[in-house]
Structure formats: C-alpha cells, structure tokens
C-alpha cells in the first residue's frame, strides 16, 4: 500500500498501460466476434466449428499462447493484445449468437410481418434488443482480460503485472500487493460499471435472458 502512495505517477502510468492492452484487445474481439456471432445465427451449420475453434483457443494456457505468438510478434504489447483478443472471441461470439437467438419469436414474427428485410431485422430489432446480452459478454471478456494482461508483463507488454514481477524478483511484498490490488480494483470497477450499463439497457428490453 505504501508503494502506491509513494509512487502515484508510476501507478497511473501502469494502470493506463494495462487498460490500453485490455481495451484494444476487447475492441478487436468485438470487431471480429460480433460479425462471426451474427453469421453463425444465419448459417447455422457454421456454429459448431466456429464456437469449437474459439473454445479451443480459450483453453490454451496464457503463457503457452504467448510462447506460440512470440516468433511472430515478438516480446511486445502486440503479442499480449493478440492473445487477449483470441481469448475474448469465444465469449463475444457466443453471447452475440445467444443475444440474437433470445429475441422473442413474436418479435421476429412482427418484424417479418411489417416487411423488414433480413438486414433491417438485424439492425432494427435483433442487435438493439440483444445489446444487454452482448454487453454481458463484454463484461466477462474485460474482467478476464484484466487478469490475463497482468501475466503479459512477463513478455514485456508492461502494465500492472510489471509491479508483481518486480516484487517477486526483489522479494518486495509491497510491490506485489500494489500490483495485485490495483489489477483487482480495475477488474472490479470494470465489472461494476458494465453491469450498471447493462441494467440500464435492459430496462427497455424486457424479453431478454
């Protein structure tokens, strides 16, 4: 705790570094995962292979995945971001598909009945109504990415993990606690904030999961 109070500038820098990795990774995962989630609800036979591959990626231990990526992207934040994007894909794809599937069949019937095209149904009805479910996926992705990003300091990506590894090397428990504490705080506040947003959005979407 003392370390945090004595080094506010460094703390801020590390927090921002950490956040940067997480945010870029999750945004990339959204850009790839949402379209894939939509595609699997339209072309049903694609769902098992797509979620299967994303599922396998998800089970690879983080250090192993970093090791696989290092030959391509080196010891850098890029490696960390790539790995975190791959980890986040599964939950984003799954939740996007679940969000679309959870739209009340009566709503789909009404949307078709008033003469919406497939694409209009997606943008007027399915995605707007599915936002809370997709957001729940984002929340899970962010929280786990904050955790995994701490390990990414080991491969030179920076962030709060740096403090933890420094602490281990120099047997300085204060640094370990500072890094771990801030990482947890970051995860918890992201979780809380996104939960609130989700609740607000759910208010006008009563038929969701």
């Amino acid at each position, binding site marked *: 705790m003392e370390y945090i109070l004595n080094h506010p500038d460094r703390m801020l820098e590390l927090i921002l570094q950490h956040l940067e990795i997480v945010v870029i990774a999750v945004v990339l995962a959204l850009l790839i995962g949402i379209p894939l989630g939509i595609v699997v609800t339209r072309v049903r036979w694609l769902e098992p292979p797509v979620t299967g591959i994303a599922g396998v990626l998800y089970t690879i231990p983080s250090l192993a995945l970093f090791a696989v990526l290092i030959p391509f992207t080196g010891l850098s934040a890029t490696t960390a971001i790539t790995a975190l994007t791959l980890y986040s894909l599964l939950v984003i794809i799954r939740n996007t598909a679940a969000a679309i599937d959870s739209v*009340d069949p009566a709503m789909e*019937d*009404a949307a078709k009945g008033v003469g*919406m095209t497939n694409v209009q149904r997606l943008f007027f009805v399915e995605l707007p*109504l599915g936002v809370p479910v997709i957001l729940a996926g984002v929340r899970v992705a962010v929280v786990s990415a904050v955790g995994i990003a701490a390990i990414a300091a080991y491969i030179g990506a920076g962030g709060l993990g740096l403090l933890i590894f420094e602490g281990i090397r120099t047997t300085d428990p204060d640094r370990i606690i500072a890094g771990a504490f801030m990482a947890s705080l970051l995860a918890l506040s992201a979780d809380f904030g996104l939960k609130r947003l989700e609740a607000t959005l759910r208010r006008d*979407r009563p038929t969701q999961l």
Partner: protein
Amino acid sequence: MITFEHVSKTYPSHNGGELVRAVNDLNVQVDEGELCVLIGPSGSGKTTAMRMVNRLVIPTEGRISVNGQDNSTMDPVLLRRSIGYVIQQVGLFPHLTVAENVGIVPRLLGWEKSKRRERANELLELVGLPPAKFADRHPRQLSGGQQQRVGVARALAADPEIILMDEPFGAVDPITRKQLQRELRRIQSEVHKTILFVTHDISEAFLLADRIVLMYRGRLIQNGTPAELLRHPVSEFVTDFIGEDQGLRVLQYTTLSEIASSAPHPLPTGHAVGTGADGNHIGGPLLLPQSMSVLDGLRHLAAVGHEAPDEILLQDKQDEITGIITNANLVMALSEAITSGETEEQGIAGGNNNNGNGSGLDTAHDIREANGVHS
C-alpha cells in the same frame, strides 16, 4: 381482395413418415372492404391459411392472389409492407416509443420523419390513445389493451388495403376484449379495409364478421354470412361449433325484411301515425326500418307495451313501405329460432307480457308451447 385457389400446405410430421396437411384445398374469396373471419378449433389451419397471404408461410399447392396478383410472384418484403399485420402477442418493439412503433412501416418505406410522426399521431387518435399522452411512451408503460391498440394503429400506418389479424384480442381480459372489438367495428366503419381475421371465439366472429369461414382439420367446412351459418348450417359440426346461443343469434342476424311479406296494397289506414313526434307509439301499425334485426324488432314491440299493434310495417331508407310483418310471420320466425337453437328460456322478447293482442309471447318456453314443440 384476397383469393385462395386450391391452396394446400403440408408439413412433414414430427415422428417422420406421413405428411401433415395443415391446410387442405382451400378456396375462399375475401372481397374488398369485407371483414372475413377465419374460425375453427385449434389445429384447423386457420392461422396457417392467414400467414400464407403475406408469405410468412409458403403454400405447397395452389395460388393466393392479393388484389388480383399472384402473391408468389411478388417480393415478400414489399408484399408485407403493403399488408397490415396484427398478432396476438402484439409484438411491439420494446426499445422504440409508441409513435416510432406505429411509424415503423412508413419508416421502412422511407417516409420523412415529420410525416411519420404526423401519421402516427393521427392513428393514435383513431385508436383512442391521445398522442399527447401516449406517443412518447414505451410499450412497457402501456396496459395489454393499450398495447394492442398500438398494434392496430401500426397495421394501419401505411394505409394498406388489406389487414391480417391473428387472434388480436385473444390475450386481453374479457372486458377489454369487448371494448377492443367494438372499437374495431367503429374503425372498420371508418376505414373499410379488407380484413382477414383469425379467431377461435365464435362470439367474436359473429360480432365482427361480414363473412365467416369455418375450418376444421385444414378443410373449409362452411363459408357464408353469419346469418347463413346460423340458418343453414351445412352439418352437425357447424351447429355444434356455433353453440348454445344459436337461437338468440338467429334472431340477431335475421333482418325484419327477411321474415316480412311483401308490401300490402292498399296500405293499412293510419300507417303514417304509427309513431308520434316524441318517438312513442300512438296506435296504428308500428313502422320499423327493414334492415333492423328481428331481435331489435321484438325489443321495440316489447317497449311499446300495451299499445302493441297487430302489424309491423317496414320502411327502406327512403321511407317507402317495403313489407309487412304479421303476428303469424313473427311466430314463425321465433319458432324457427327456437327449434334451431334448442335453448331453454331465453327470454327473447323480454319484459311485457301482452297475451291477448297476439304479440305478447315472451319466452322461448311460451312459444314452444304455442307451437306444440316439446323438448
């Protein structure tokens, strides 16, 4: 106008093997401005038949024409935008306001925002939801009945000629349902749409329909006006389906002109003074409009009480005398109603008992006795 020509829809059955015929060789024509009720027990194919009109279901065989054009040659999306659609679950979009929901088809058709809003306000007014109060609410802030009013407004938004309604009032409480049914009648009398209306509620059918199409297991059993179904049911099934209030309904759906003899010559004296300036009967024959139902005619007779006349003269819209109803005509109509309805003690004429002047038979039981019909 909607025309079904030899339309069938078959589905593979769940346990494999045999095909399920949801709709079997259906031939129906719904004329312009007509409210046609498709009725039948569940599984009769009525909803499937309706959903084939806007191509939410594709027929296996046969042809459906919408305003003379084969609907299989039309773009389904454009077809649906040109047809109003109301469903039991309402299906309002919860993330849009009431006005936005009503304006959804105009929006798909590319109307400008201000025009959409104007149209939405106009329609909310028509369905009895003042726009100032309701336009900017969200569907969840409305009661079930109010939501369905919005559903009806949405169907009318782009001023389609045809509207499909799939058990639209099935999910609301009985009092609200009655209210909505009456409102629909009022709205229909203003807008004159061609409406295909699916229900399993026979009272609703009789209240709303110009034409009733009764289906059972995918087949058309009878197609006719409410009066035709009542008075000339083609089978026991129709009679059973119409149910126990049949006698009363016969009287309700038979007009006075149907039971009258042709206009008498010369006219009975004093016919013109049948009703006084204050609307009260002041002696002489009673003058009633020829389009009035027998039930309402009987109510009038009961209301004039002791002054009840021997005859009723019928007038058309131009006040010409077109027919005469004698006590004998009336007794025959009543006995027809009773024998077809076989219901006990309906109290059809209600109120005054005027035995002696011939028009005072006042319960089903009395008439049955008078005609020597015993149950």
